[in-house]
């Protein structure tokens, strides 16, 4: 029996208008195997997974489940076969308890009897501590993920699909999750693990299938590879690590936050509490933290979309900027890159030159008596495209027509080309392909080298360690003291992210 794969895909092909998302993809997952599915954004991983989970139909190809040919018509059919899936974005109701949420997501037969007892049992058995009567809004992101995992486990899955499960976890939580996954694997559950975090894959997965542009380009045993070699297979090109000259953390203070307190304007948002921070000329300050700990609120205060009561809570070059609107801040020399590319950093259905005008109008003098200087705006947009190697047929094309990586390069480039003294970037390379990510990181480092102050807020610790001179951690709206990147370890940052203070520092945990 052990020779029969749990799941075998043969020649899966799926085309969307203009793109082939999957081209003749074949994949074999053995019982008890932890199988990594690796690839850049847009490589076709999600399409393939949607197909396995019955969300989407393929144009061609066959599926064998334990040797039998099957048709997976719907997620229900997938669940009946024994496929469970933990999505990257949770579908949980904040105002309901853990038990109610689980009951909503499983087949009705399973909700009968002592559901909370079974939840406790499963969560104990697999080291996923969870109280069925807690309300979801009181739980951390890691705990919420456990709900999704337990929900799957209650249905006795034989194949568990996990889509980027660690992007919202602290390093310690990741270790816990891996223990659970290894245990499941020993019990014979197959796991399809989707990620682009190579170190994780190396430590967890037995085999890896690497996809690029809709095709399987390699299969490997992660143990025998280096993170670098896998990245290169993923990109199909040599990976360039960012280069940097010596660190400089003693420049003049360009951006300062002083006792910043802000009440969140969002539902279930995080209030910012007593934040103090300085970013100096010539340095990159990284802010780590799990999503939802105040990053969005911090960014809104920095962009000026939300204004502070106290004008001196935000100082740019020593000038009180707390009440400045985004345009006044740009005029004062602040470059801003928000998290959402489409709809926040750029208008999806506007051309690139119009999107260049959007944020550069003030600083680059792209208006005259209130009229748009089209020629000058176009020229500026073209310069950005050229300088940052944005792949596009021309600046009259819509922002939506660009891939995530290209659009992010354009947005970051648009801010950098305005020559700001301070640049604030939220999630600089979130959902961006490895090649573009490397280029963006390099650009930020270069900016700092040229004397600008760079503040980068990111969930990606690898990235922060790569680019930052100093690292601070935001947790529940409080900011830890920034420490020199070389004097701090991933574990220490992880503890701070989880809200556990380091020795000698007051604990910030709420």
């Amino acid at each position: 029996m052990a020779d029969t794969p749990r799941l075998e895909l043969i020649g899966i092909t799926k085309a969307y208008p203009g793109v082939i998302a999957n081209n003749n993809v074949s994949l074999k997952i053995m019982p008890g195997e932890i199988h990594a599915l690796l690839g850049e954004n847009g490589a076709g991983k999600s399409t393939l997974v949607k197909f396995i989970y019955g969300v989407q139909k393929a144009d061609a190809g066959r599926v064998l489940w334990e040797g039998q040919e099957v048709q997976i018509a719907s997620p229900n059919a997938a669940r009946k076969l024994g496929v469970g899936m933990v999505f990257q974005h949770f579908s949980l109701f904040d105002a309901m308890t853990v038990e109610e949420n689980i009951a909503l997501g499983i087949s009705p037969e399973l909700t009968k009897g002592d559901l909370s007892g079974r939840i406790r049992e499963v969560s104990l058995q697999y080291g996923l501590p969870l109280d069925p009567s807690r309300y979801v809004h009181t739980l951390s992101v890691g705990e919420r993920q456990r709900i999704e995992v337990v929900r799957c486990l209650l249905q006795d899955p034989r194949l568990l699909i996990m889509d980027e499960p660690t992007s919202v976890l602290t390093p310690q939580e990741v270790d816990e999750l891996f223990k659970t996954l290894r245990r499941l694997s020993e019990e014979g559950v197959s796991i399809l693990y989707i990620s682009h975090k190579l170190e994780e894959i190396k430590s967890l997965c037995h085999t890896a299938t690497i996809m690029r542009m809709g095709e399987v380009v390699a299969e490997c045993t992660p143990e025998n590879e280096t993170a670098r070699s896998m990245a290169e297979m993923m990109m199909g090109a040599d990976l360039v690590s960012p280069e940097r000259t010596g660190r400089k953390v003693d420049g003049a203070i360009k951006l300062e936050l002083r006792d910043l307190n802000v009440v969140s304007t969002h539902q279930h948002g995080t209030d910012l509490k007593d934040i103090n921070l300085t970013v100096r000329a010539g340095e990159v300050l990284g802010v780590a933290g799990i999503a939802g700990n105040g990053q969005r609120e911090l960014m809104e205060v920095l962009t000026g979309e939300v204004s502070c009561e106290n004008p001196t809570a935000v100082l740019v070059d020593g000038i009180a900027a707390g009440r400045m609107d985004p345009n006044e801040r740009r005029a004062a020399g602040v470059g801003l890159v928000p998290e959402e590319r489409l709809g926040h950093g750029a208008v999806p259905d506007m051309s690139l030159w119009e999107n260049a005008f959007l944020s550069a109008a003030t600083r680059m003098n792209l208006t005259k008596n209130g009229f748009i200087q089209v020629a000058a705006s176009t020229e500026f947009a073209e310069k950005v495209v050229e300088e940052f190697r944005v792949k596009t047929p021309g600046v009259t094309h819509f922002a939506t027509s660009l891939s995530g990586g290209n659009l992010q390069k354009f947005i970051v480039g648009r801010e950098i080309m305005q020559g700001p003294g301070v640049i604030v970037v939220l999630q600089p390379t979130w959902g961006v392909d490895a090649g573009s990510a490397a280029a963006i990181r390099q650009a930020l480092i270069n900016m700092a080298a040229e004397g600008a102050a760079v503040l980068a807020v990111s969930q990606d610790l690898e990235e922060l360690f790569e680019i930052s001179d100093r690292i601070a951690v935001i947790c529940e709206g409080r900011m830890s003291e920034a420490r020199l990147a070389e004097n701090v370890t991933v574990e220490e940052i992880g503890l701070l992210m989880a809200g556990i203070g380091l020795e000698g520092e007051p604990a910030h945990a709420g």
Partner: protein
Amino acid sequence: MLVRLEQRPEASKSMIYVSPLIAVVLTVLTAMVMFALLGVYPVKAIETFFIEPVSSLDGLAELLVKATPLVLIGVGLSLGFQANVWNIGAEGQLVIGALAGGGLALAFFDQQSIFLVPAMLVCGVLGGMAWAAIPAWLKTRYNTNEILTSLMLTYVGLLVLSYLVHGPWKDPQGMNFPESRLFHDSALLPILIDETRLNVGALIALFVVVLGWILISRHIIGFQIKVIGMAPMAASFAGFKEKRLIWLTLLISGGCAGLAGVIELSGAIGQIVPSISPGYGFTAIIVAFLGRLHPVGVLFAGLLMALTYLGGDSAQITMNLPNAVTGVFQGMLLFFLLASDVLIKYRVRFGAPKINTEAAE
């Protein structure tokens, strides 16, 4: 054979302009079927409806007179609609604007001055703006829904008109008819072609179209309007003030409606009567959408809509068709327009989806 709708990789720019034409053609075809069912010779009916009204100089002039308020209001509304500010109360703003301008004409009914007409136009604009300022203030201050407030204010405006023509502004020598005095000559807009009602108002509408075009395509305010409509978060990221744009778009659309009202009064009617407009303020909503929320599109859409008014009258008179034909035409036009707009984002494909067949086995 399979017919499918397939999503386009990028919205089709040409379809944005072709779609209204498709809608017009489909409307005409369907109308012919409808006429045939009503027992009227279809080609003759279409001719009566679309050709006859504009086959004389007088007819053409009348078309422009009817199109003037539609275009004026349509341009104003389209700016607001692009910013997701839904002013549905242009009819009320038209009435109040007309009353403001007309009131001035009545106040100076016995005096001659070349400044009277310009002053009336200004009063009309201010009147419409004042009426639109109420929903603007309520929305920016209390976050009320401008669709409801502007619509309700329309009925208030109509009652104000009714009160004035039945009461204080009634013509003292008017045999108790609910009408004001006839305006003095110097309170009337200059006529462009003798023996017709075509007046300077048409030129003003054309000027507003050009102004609107420049504003939306080249001016920073137009840019802000577009961005706030398409991506509100990007607008706040860029530092555009939403409240200011709500005020601005409501004042512009109210001002345009008020201007249309005073032009209708002093150009086409010549006194204040209980019913100043046959629903121009509401029809202009269709005009704005049919014209793709673009001033030049609105110009053509306004002419077309004006033609359905005239065609309805003409079909009623010469072919004994019910007046409801006008409404049916306007409804069908909007219906087919919305249907053909699907083609902007989708294209029609025949046959099964194409795939890489060598990968199948």
